[in-house]
């Protein structure tokens, strides 16, 4: 997954190839379950069915290419050496996961429940503190200023509704 380990891309391609090999037939099946009005040629499921066939073919090609580039060997090494667990513990991945989690809390937990300005302030403070962006006082001041400026500019100047 990580860019620092480009050799593992083939292993990832094996997984993605298998995913599309499974997705393709599932798509074909679900397309065939869709209602046919007049002719199947203009039925809602016709085009998704073709997409399903394309995904199956391309998934196969991707898998084949990845296997020929030692993808299976790499995948075995990834599993054997517990590289996924090690990767999850790496600095870069941890940082990315924490940032995604903070965004998720902001979007699913705060937006729509708390006033937008307060939600934004909380998100910015916590994220910048985690990133150690600058001193605590500066972080608080920047977050307050930004949250108020964004809310004011979009609701009054651009006349855009805020969530």
């Amino acid at each position, binding site marked *: 997954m990580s860019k620092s380990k480009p050799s593992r891309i083939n292993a990832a391609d094996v997984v*993605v190839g298998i995913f599309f090999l499974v997705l393709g037939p599932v798509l074909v099946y679900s397309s065939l379950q869709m*209602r046919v009005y007049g002719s199947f040629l*203009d039925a809602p499921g016709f085009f998704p069915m073709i997409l399903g066939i394309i995904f199956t073919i391309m998934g196969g090609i991707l898998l084949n*290419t990845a296997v020929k580039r030692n993808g299976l060997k790499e995948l075995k090494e990834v599993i054997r050496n517990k590289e996924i667990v090690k990767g999850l513990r790496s600095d870069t991945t941890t940082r*990315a996961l924490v940032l995604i989690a903070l965004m998720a809390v*902001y979007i699913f937990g705060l937006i729509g429940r708390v006033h937008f300005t307060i939600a934004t302030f909380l998100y*910015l403070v916590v994220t910048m503190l985690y990133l150690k*962006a600058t001193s605590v006082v500066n972080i608080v001041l920047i977050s307050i200023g930004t949250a108020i400026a964004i809310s004011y500019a979009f609701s009054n100047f651009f006349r855009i509704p*805020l969530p």
Partner: protein
Amino acid sequence: MLETITREFSLFSHVFGSILTAPNILMMIFGTLGGIVIGAIPGLTATMALALLINVSYGMNMDLALSFLLSVYVGAVTGGCISATMINIPGTPSAAATALDGFPLAKKGKGGLAIGVGIIASFFGMIISIISLIVLTPIISKLALKFGHWEMFLISVFGIMICGNLTTEDAPVKGWIVGFLGILTAMVGLDAVYAYPRFTFNLLQLKGGISLIPALIGLFGISEVVSVLQEKEPYKIEGKVGRVVPDWKDIKSLIPISIRSGIIGMLIGVIPGAGEDIGAWVSYDVGKRRSKHPERFGKGSIEGVACAETANNAVVGGAMIPLLTLAIPGSPPAAMVLAAMWLHGVRPGPLLNFEFPGFLYAVAIVLLLCSVFMLIWGLALAKPMVSVLKIKREILMPIIVPLTVIGAYAGGVRIFDVYVMFFFGLLGYVLRNLEYPMAPLVLGIILGPMADVSFRRAMMQTKGSLLPLLTRPMGLVFVVAIIWIIYSGYRRTQQLKRLASEVASEA
């Protein structure tokens, strides 16, 4: 003939007058400046900026919105050369080739000169692409009027295939897969013919389909924020900026290079979804092979900077050609411009000139004025702009997130769109890390509805037989082109495989 010229000139003058208003000019002046700043800051790309700004333009009239978005687009593509030169990190992907020579020049204390040459070359690129836009758009529009459902379907597939081919480094199949994944995304919601719900999983919110703008904001906003912030390494500004404006002799020597690079960039821009970065790389490669001093490329060649910078800006005008004639964006930022046009009720395509006479001229005039403002701002502010690079990304990037939320929410005033944006942000992040390109995905989302309806209607016309469709000359050209793309993709994969096995055996 004379009557046509008179009519077109009168239309041009009318459009010129309507564009030349104080709010539009002010918008272009500040939009270009904003664009250059955005482009200069690593992590803030032209595509991301446009995705965030589409909904901001909602309350504006079309001319003002066009001035706003195109000025940011032009500025951002140009601004990338500042950070590429001074810190060896392209502000936008389109400036990656610029860094190869810009940064060595900065190390020698000639960073300002590299930026100056880059900005003048960008201006040349813009002018060449604007001329091409005015000349080629009516011709392609006339040709596109002859396209039936079959041709429209094929052009969608062609766009995705060629985009997938050009945007992946190793296996083109990865680009094609994400392109078709984009088409599948466009299938979600009520189908366009019978209003039958497809892949909605009984969710009411999905019946309206996946909204384009939240998906774009997620793909280019959220994923970029996470990708940039996960890295800890701070930027280091190299050397002094030095003199910015090059000598007249240097400028004169750039003209032939710029004409060649401008044409290359414009042609790459016409290819669906290819984008500014590919234009710059192709032009750089051609420039190196045609140069009298290829050995200087990569070590601080002014020629190298000019090749890359002319071409990436020439893509801007080139990308507008398929956008205006076929509603197919030539680059990811152009996809944002297309979304904005749809938002404002403008339907680009072969009928654009009938439905919105003078719209082509409006785009060309705005691009021309933005190019002039970009040249002035760029040369005047190159030195102070370097201080923008000192802003810490740990402060700047989190601020993008609330903007993505507002951008996603504003279009439909639905919190669900914010969730869609977040989902696509995660998808974009995963795709980036697995080295899948995002341009084909965007193109797929945009072209999906057209591909679906056109294919089904073409099949109905021929009662399911492919043979009558293969007798259509334009269709046949596209079929041959698609087969050629698949073949060239296959050949490239085989070559890379051979190369990999040779390297492995040598090791």
